[in-house]
Structure formats: structure tokens, C-alpha cells
């Protein structure tokens, strides 16, 4: 079920009624049933995968927790009669014992992810290499389908496991409660990637019907629908036209595509997250925010703190930090400092870790070279921006522009253009083509043709652009307000009729202007007996 489908709306409506009728202690069970129902509807053949992940992670986690408790209790009990070396040795032993369960679980679950997601990518490359050497294709592709949400729920589960391993979390006290955490339907399709310690605070209830909270949740869902149907799905039409015929739409059109895609993706992704978080709110569950007005970022590092926040945090906490402060990395850093000086020694762990993280981020998004290129491009740009820091410092010491609005605008525009162009790897899904198209932006002479009406031949008419700009305008205003306060609270403080009128307008514009349904093509109605 897509979020923006009739069946999903019915699903939520029915669930909503049931949720607030049944005894509160069963609410989380209802959510569990609903989540598996939702999952089964989309992907029943692959139910096995999520079950394996759920069961293995829960029991491995429980074992680790037992070890943690055992260690704590033992040390407490024998505080007096253990020497420092004894304590250290004991901890080492526990660490070893934990390792087996921990590694086994990690291997199984990332193994499943790797198998389902990357097998054909590996095969593709093996064949490619074989062909490069003049041989025939070695392997044929396997018919493996991707279980729905596997990238998201695997990451959620592994963060659960790692947090227990680090003794930062107590974990769930029942397999079924954990199963709900893993499969929670609002976030199974595109996140956010919740942390157990955060989600579990509100996931299991009990929840009373709170009119204001439910109203806020519904408003947020409505807002998400508006973004997806009115802005995103509309822009998608033109985006598809542009990206499907690169030879025809090079040069200036690449710039147009870049910007259109940036707003389409933003509206679609944040819209989907709004719906997810809004649903959570309706049911009393607090889901983490995933976006923080990313297009207001002043540089690329800041951007990645504002876009897909939970993903960035996951890679930071579970890949970036462990990698960069690992013994091996520190040794490498020391070695580099000794042999190449401080400057290089300091940079090495940062740069290597950054590239590895962005490589994995890229490949997490998809099993193809264009995603790897996308990831690495982000990593490289980040590294470059780190390198340029001293020059920026020098610049700001000479020119007092740091606080000026114009300069902020420049930074924002620069960042938007930068991330949008890197995203072209994701758009064209082909590395050499992307470079070619990027280059054509600078070499092409066809910028003037953008104004001769060709933009009206991408599948969108003038009134469609009016709607898009109008929608983006509303988005901008809302974002500007959000810098200082919560928009829904603001509206809630206004007189009732204004508030109701605003939402009425939102619902009506969503229903009338949304890019859904079959559309009206008068030529369809031509009556032809043939």
C-alpha cells in the first residue's frame, strides 16, 4: 500500500477507530498485527526475512544483555576482592563471550541484506570483468527480490543490537514488543530509522485519545499528502521527461532537471516522512524527525546534518566513530604523523573514515555504481570543504561578510546547487552519462531555448507551474515560520474559524490540485466504433 492510496487511507481509518476502542494495554498488540498485516499485504512471500531478523536480533540482544547484567552484578559483588588486573581480565573475558553472539547476529542480518540486495550487483561486475578480458559472461543473474523495507529494518535492528552490546540500552523485554519495533508500519517503507531507546518510550502505550495530539497528527499527515500530491507528483512528470531523453535535454535543461528534481525529491521524501510522523502522532507514538529545513544549510556538512537525519546519525554512530577511533585507525594516524608529519597524520583518519562512510552510504541507497559514485562524490566534496576551511577563515578575516544576509543567501544557493548536481548520479543512474550531462551544463549554448516555450512541453502546462510555485511558496513560508516556532501551535493559537478555514483550503487544494487519478484527456472520449 502506498501512503497515497485509497486503501491506505481506509487502513488507517479502521486502525484509528479500533485503537481507541480497545483496552489500552492491547494497543501495541494491535499495532503489531497492523504492521504485519501491512507488511504481508505488500510482501507476503518475504515475511520470512523480517521474521529471521527479528528473532535472531532479539535473542542475541537478550544474551548480550544477560552478559552485561552478569558483568555488572559480578563486579559489584566482588568489588573488594578483585584487583585492577583481575577486573580487566574479567571484562575482557565477558567481551569475548559477547563477541560470538554479537558477530553471529550481525553476520546473519547483514548477510541477508547483502545477499538480497547485492548479489546481482556482484554478478554484474564479475561478468563485466570477465568481458573486459575478452571472455563470455560467467554468471547469470539470480531471481532474488528485495524484501520490503529491508534496508531500513535491518539498520533499525542492528542499531538495537549494537546499543545493547555497548550497554547503552536494555533492549525489549518481549519478543513481540521487539517485533513491533522492527516492523512498525509507518516507518517500514522509508524510515525514519528509529533508535530503540527513543521509540520504545512511546511505542508501547498506553495511549489515551488526546484531541489536540490527534489533530496535530492529522494536520501533519495532511501536510505530507499536500507535498506529495500537489508538488512532488506534479514535478515528477517533467523530471521523467527530462531524464528519459538526455540527448534531447542537455545543457540548460540539466540545470532545470537538477533543480526540479531537488524540489520533487524534497517534497516527496519529506512528505512521506510527515505522513509517517503524523501517523505516529495520531497513535501517540513519537517518531524522530528526519529533516530540518535542509535547503537552508550553509555548507554541505551542515546539509547532511539536516537531510535524512536518522540515516546520517546511524552511519555516524555505528560506522564513522567506531572506524575513526578504532585502535587500527589510531595506530595508522600515529604512524602517519611520525612519517609524514602532523598535517597528514591528522587528516588521515578523518579522510579515510569519511570516504568509507560515504561509500557505504552510497551503496546502502542502491546496488549500483551510480549510487557509489553519488556517495563518494558527497564524501569528496565534504573533504574538500574541510581542506578549504583555513582559506575560508582567511577570507572572513579580510571581508566582514559572515553576518550579512547576502552572504548567507550565497552560501545557501551554493549548497543547494552543489547537492543537486551530485544528485544527478541518482537521476541518470549512469555514471559516465552523469559526468557528460554535468559537463554539458557548462559547455552548452542552449540556455536561451529554455525561454522559448520548451519548458511547457515536458508534460506540464503553465497552470501546473503556477501550482508548483505556489506550493513551493507555501512550503517556504512554513519553513521560515518553523525557524522560530511550531507552525501547528501557531495556527492553534489563531481564532477557530481561521484555523478551520486554513485546513479546509489545504484539504480542498490537495483534492483539486493533487496530481492523482487518471487525469482528464478529452481525446480519450472520442467515440470511435473501431
Amino acid at each position, binding site marked *: 500500500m502506498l501512503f497515497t492510496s485509497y486503501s491506505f487511507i481506509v487502513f488507517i481509518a479502521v486502525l484509528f477507530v479500533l485503537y481507541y476502542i480497545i483496552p489500552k494495554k492491547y494497543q501495541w498488540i494491535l499495532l503489531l498485527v497492523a504492521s504485519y498485516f501491512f507488511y504481508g499485504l505488500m510482501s507476503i512471500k518475504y515475511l520470512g526475512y523480517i521474521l529471521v531478523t527479528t528473532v535472531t536480533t532479539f535473542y542475541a540482544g537478550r544474551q548480550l544483555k544477560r552478559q552485561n547484567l552478569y558483568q555488572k552484578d559480578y563486579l559489584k559483588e566482588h568489588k573488594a576482592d578483585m584487583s585492577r588486573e583481575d577486573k580487566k581480565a574479567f571484562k575482557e573475558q565477558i567481551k569475548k563471550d559477547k563477541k560470538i553472539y554479537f558477530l553471529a547476529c550481525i553476520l546473519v542480518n547483514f548477510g541477508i541484506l547483502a545477499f538480497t540486495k547485492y548479489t546481482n550487483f556482484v554478478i554484474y561486475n564479475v561478468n563485466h570483468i570477465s568481458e573486459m578480458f575478452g571472455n563470455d559472461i560467467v554468471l547469470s543473474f539470480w531471481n532474488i527480490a528485495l524484501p520490503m523495507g529491508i534496508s531500513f529494518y535491518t539498520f533499525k535492528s542492528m542499531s538495537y543490537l549494537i546499543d545493547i552490546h555497548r550497554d547503552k540500552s536494555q533492549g525489549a523485554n518481549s519478543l513481540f514488543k521487539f517485533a513491533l519495533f522492527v516492523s512498525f508500519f509507518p516507518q517500514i517503507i522509508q524510515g525514519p530509522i528509529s533508535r530503540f531507546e527513543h521509540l520504545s518510550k512511546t511505542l508501547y502505550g498506553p495511549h489515551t485519545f488526546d*484531541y489536540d495530539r490527534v489533530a496535530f497528527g492529522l494536520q501533519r499527515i495532511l501536510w505530507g499528502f499536500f507535498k506529495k500530491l500537489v508538488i512532488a507528483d506534479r514535478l515528477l512528470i517533467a523530471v521523467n521527461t527530462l531524464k528519459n531523453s538526455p540527448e534531447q535535454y542537455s545543457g540548460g535543461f540539466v540545470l532545470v532537471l537538477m533543480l526540479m528534481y531537488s524540489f520533487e525529491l524534497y517534497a516527496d521524501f519529506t512528505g512521506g516522512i510527515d505522513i509517517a510522523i503524523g501517523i505516529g502522532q495520531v497513535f501517540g507514538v513519537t517518531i524522530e524527525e528526519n529533516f530540518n529545513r535542509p535547503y537552508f544549510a550553509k555548507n554541505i556538512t551542515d546539509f547532511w546534518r539536516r537531510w535524512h537525519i536518522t540515516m546520517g546519525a546511524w552511519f555516524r554512530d555505528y560506522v564513522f566513530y567506531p572506524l575513526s577511533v578504532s585502535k587500527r585507525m589510531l595506530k595508522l594516524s600515529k604512524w602517519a604523523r611520525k612519517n609524514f608529519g602532523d598535517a597528514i597524520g591528522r587528516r588521515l583518519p578523518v579522510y579515510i573514515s569519511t570516504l568509507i562512510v560515504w561509500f557505504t552510504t552510497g551503496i546502502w541507497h542502491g546496488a549500483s555504481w551510480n549510487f557509489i559514485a553519488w556517495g563518494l562524490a558527497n564524501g569528496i566534496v565534504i573533504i574538500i570543504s574541510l581542506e578549504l576551511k583555513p582559506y575560508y577563515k582567511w577570507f572572513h578575516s579580510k571581508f566582514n561578510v559572515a553576518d550579512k544576509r547576502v552572504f548567507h543567501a550565497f552560501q545557501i544557493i551554493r549548497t543547494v546547487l552543489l547537492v543537486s548536481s551530485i544528485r544527478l548520479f541518482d537521476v541518470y543512474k549512469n555514471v559516465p552519462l552523469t559526468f557528460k550531462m554535468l559537463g554539458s551544463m557548462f559547455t552548452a549554448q542552449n540556455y536561451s531555448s529554455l525561454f522559448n516555450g520548451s519548458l511547457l512541453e515536458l508534460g506540464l502546462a503553465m497552470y501546473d507551474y503556477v501550482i508548483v510555485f505556489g506550493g513551493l511558496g507555501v512550503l517556504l513560508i512554513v519553513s521560515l515560520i518553523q525557524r522560530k516556532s511550531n507552525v501547528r501551535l501557531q495556527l492553534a493559537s489563531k481564532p477557530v474559524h481561521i484555523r478551520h478555514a486554513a485546513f479546509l483550503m489545504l*484539504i480542498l487544494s490537495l*483534492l*483539486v490540485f493533487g496530481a*492523482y*487519478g487518471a487525469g*482528464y484527456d478529452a481525446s480519450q472520449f472520442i*467515440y470511435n*466504433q473501431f
Partner: protein
Amino acid sequence: MKKKIILLSISAILLFGALFLLEKLLMPKHVSGIVEGSLIESYYNEKLKHDILFVGDCEVYENFSPVTLWENYGYTSFIRGSAQQLIWQSYYLLEETFEYEKPDVVVFNVLAMKYDTPQKEAYNRMTLDGMAFSKSKLEAINASMLPEEHMIDYIFPFLRYHSRWSSLTKDDFQYMFSKKPLFHNGYYMRVDVKPVEYIPKKKKLSNYEFGEFSYKYLEMMTNLCKENGVELVLIKSPTLYPVWYDEWDQQMIDYAKDHNLMYFNFIDHIEEAGIDFNTDTYDAGLHLNITGAEKMSLYFGEILKEQFDIIDRRNDPVYAEAWIEKSTFYYKMRDQQYHELETYGEIMMYGEVVK
């Protein structure tokens, strides 16, 4: 809390009111161009009984003229036809009509037997959108939907037509709540002439059997008429194209025999009816024009007179008055069409006529 409920209710009423009005505004009016979309709903304006009911596709609504039947036989009739009306749509229309009245005779054009499965969403719409809300309508929708369609788009056509906001015309505002009369008890009038030039050769088919679904609904139609004491008459309209295969004809002959029904293949009666495809067709043999339809109606009326005891209502003052109005409108439109033909070379009154 009570205040909240009241306020919410008011807002809900406003919302649904706005949606209701918007739906009326955004639905295509079919008052110009492809006016056939307005055929089905024109039935509900009728106040008096009809003793003969035609049901089926364009081969009924363009080839028979109720006014002619009235003037020459005193028979009241209505044609509940629509563009490419599929057999199950005909069945459910009949079922619905019987809630309003029980005619003496139902005439069904069997060309639709060749369509065993849902065809085109746009044609579905032209037939179904005009139906009043009823159980029959829901069942008709269900049988007609293509796999990618949803029932809810038919119950709330707003969802289907909302994107028309960008192509609204004056007609959409003017005819929001009622249409202007365009037809004559379901007859779509054309006075222009385009003689037959060339009839494409018959293509051979791999299978001439009509589909299971078609037969199912034909059975249902037969039973429905029997249960309601209505005579079902099967016909094949006199057109030169699309092809009516002999194998199809035979199946209908057999069916009629098995079920004790009358079946007339009027293609064989063209000469007898006096139909001349040089003057009586407006689209080179696909459909008859007004002169053809009038001839056909005269001929068919004779058959009906022989076979059935349908009341001649010309002496009934109530009916006579109503039908005088209808005839007046009929001849007025005819004259206007001839005038347009003379002045402009083509018929203008239907807006841009797309063929």
C-alpha cells in the same frame, strides 16, 4: 468539548458542501462535442410511461426515432442507449429501468455480444456517470471496471475529474445543475448525408464463439424480462460496418430459438425497409441519419404492430400533449440542422463534432 464537536461538524459540512459543488462543476457536461455522454441521464426527465424500451449501443440511439413511432403508431418509446454500451451495462440499465416502469417490449441490439470483457474507461464513464445512484449502478460499475480502476472513483466522480479544474469552460458553469435538451427520447439526430463509399473487407476471426460473459448477461436479460412480464426482442441494426459475421448471426438465431425470442437481423431487411445508403447515412454506412432512422422506425413499427398488442396512445390527452412538445422540439432541431448544413456546410449545434 461540545463546542469542538459543533465546530468540527460545521467545518465538515462546509467541506462536503464545497466538494459537492466542485464535483458538479468539474464533471464533464457533454453538452458540446461528444454529447453522447449525456444520453443516459436524459431518461430521468421523463414523466410518462414508455411501452417500448430500446437498450444498447449507438446502433440503437442513432437508428431509431421514437417520434416517428409515436406519429405513425402512437407507440411511446425511449432509447436507453450509450456509446459502446456493453451487454452487462444494458442489463443493469434494464434492471434499473424496471424500478421505474415495466414496458411491454424491450429491444436489444446484439452487436454488444462481441465484447466479453471491459473495454475502455472513457466509454464506461459515458454510460455509467449518467446513471442515478442505485444498486444496479454499483453492479454495473463492478462489471465494467478495468483492473486499474476503483469503485470509489465512480461513487465520487470528483476524484476522477478533479484535474479538469484547468480546462473548465463556460458550459461547465452554465450546466452545473441541469443540462439543455439534446436528444429525442434517446435519439441522437443527424440530418447530414455521407454516402457509403467503401466497405473494408471482412477479416477472418480465429474464434467466432461469443464469450461466456456475454451469454451470461444475455441469459440474465432474458430471465429479467420474463420475470417482469416484458417481451424481449433481439435485433441487429441495419449497418454495413462493423462486420456482423454469419457465424455470429447464427448464434443469435439459435439463442432466440432456444429461448422462444424474436430475433431480427435488419441487415437482411435493408432493401425491404427502403433504406438507401446513398442518402440515409451520415457516416458512410456506420449509422443511419434522420431519414434512415425514420424509415427504420416505420418498418420496425409495422413489425411491432403485427407481433404485439402495444397501446396506441394518440387519443390519450396527457400523452398527446407531451408528445406534441417532443415532436415540436424534434422538428425544430431538424430544421435548425438543415439550416446549419446549408449555411455552414456542417452541423454546428453539437459544438465541435468530433468523428
